[in-house]
């Protein structure tokens, strides 16, 4: 029973957006936001550079842009929204995971179905001929 009492403080959840700081004050928090700003600016600058450059193999650019965007979303989630892997964030992460699942299903499913329909559709000139 004493064990449960000791751990009661560690079991309390954290609201999304709230930070868990070990004895750190305002300066440390500002530093965290500065780190996030720096990383995000770096990733954004890389995205814009990659989109306009001839220095990399052209077919790789879309993939690189998507990867950079996902990385920057991760930076924003960790440094600005303070979604972490600590136990006090479990509920927030679970909700986020469910959101990502739905977003993936909606976007991936739509693209898959529409590409499949396009692929299987009769060419337009054949449709016109049949209607004569």
């Amino acid at each position, binding site marked *: *029973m004493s064990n449960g009492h000791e751990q009661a403080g560690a079991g309390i959840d954290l*609201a999304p957006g709230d930070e868990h700081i070990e004895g750190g004050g305002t300066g440390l928090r500002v530093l965290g936001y500065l780190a996030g700003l720096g990383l995000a600016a770096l990733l954004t600058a890389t995205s814009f550079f990659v989109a306009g450059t001839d220095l990399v193999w052209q077919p790789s650019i*879309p993939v690189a842009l998507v990867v950079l*965007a996902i990385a920057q979303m991760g930076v924003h989630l960790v440094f600005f929204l303070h979604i972490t892997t600590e136990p006090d964030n479990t509920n927030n992460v679970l909700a986020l995971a469910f959101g990502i699942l*739905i977003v993936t299903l909606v*976007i991936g499913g739509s693209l898959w179905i529409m590409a499949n329909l396009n692929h299987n559709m009769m060419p337009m000139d054949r449709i016109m001929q049949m209607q004569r």
Partner: protein
Amino acid sequence: MAGVVADSRSNLHQLPSIAASGAAHSGPAPERIVTGYGFWIFILSDMVMFSAFFATYAVLVGQTAGGPSGRELFNLHNVAIETGLLLVSSFTCGLATIAADARRTVWFQAAMAVTCALGLGFLAIEASEFASLVARGAGPTRSAFLSAFFTLVGCHGLHVSAGILWLLTMMAQVAAKGFRADILRRILCFALFWHALDIIWIAVFTVVYLLGSAA
């Protein structure tokens, strides 16, 4: 046999996972966590709504109906400025959160005012972009691609406009009522909203503008 049953019973009363979780003793979570979590669910549902607009855009991006494509229309220089404005505004919004937690009214109002100015700058550039597109005959009625473009980017712009109204409301409420617990909860939710808008903008500038002018 009786001893085993008694043992298992006493173990049932001390399920370590439940006893240690703290939830067994403390009742409902504090209001800040309940409010923040509920708003987090709203933000995720908002992202699901945006994902539908993104899917629509991705499906319709090639359907230009003989009209201009994104490559001929987009000005990446403006988009870079918009992105910078929104990113720095996310940072100053974080500073406002820290100032609110430290109960520093002047710093809070200053950081919120800067956030507001950056957000208005973003909206001004977006509005001028939309106006020039319509003036060039590339309005939302021109093609399915442009309908999807105006819907997606305009929906994000509407969210930013709503965020600025909320931001001004928070500045007025802090000025009038101070850092009360309910006001601090609203500031938490506003910060979540503003940061989430920046995350959606990452997807917009990558999928719409960068991929649109690369492909």
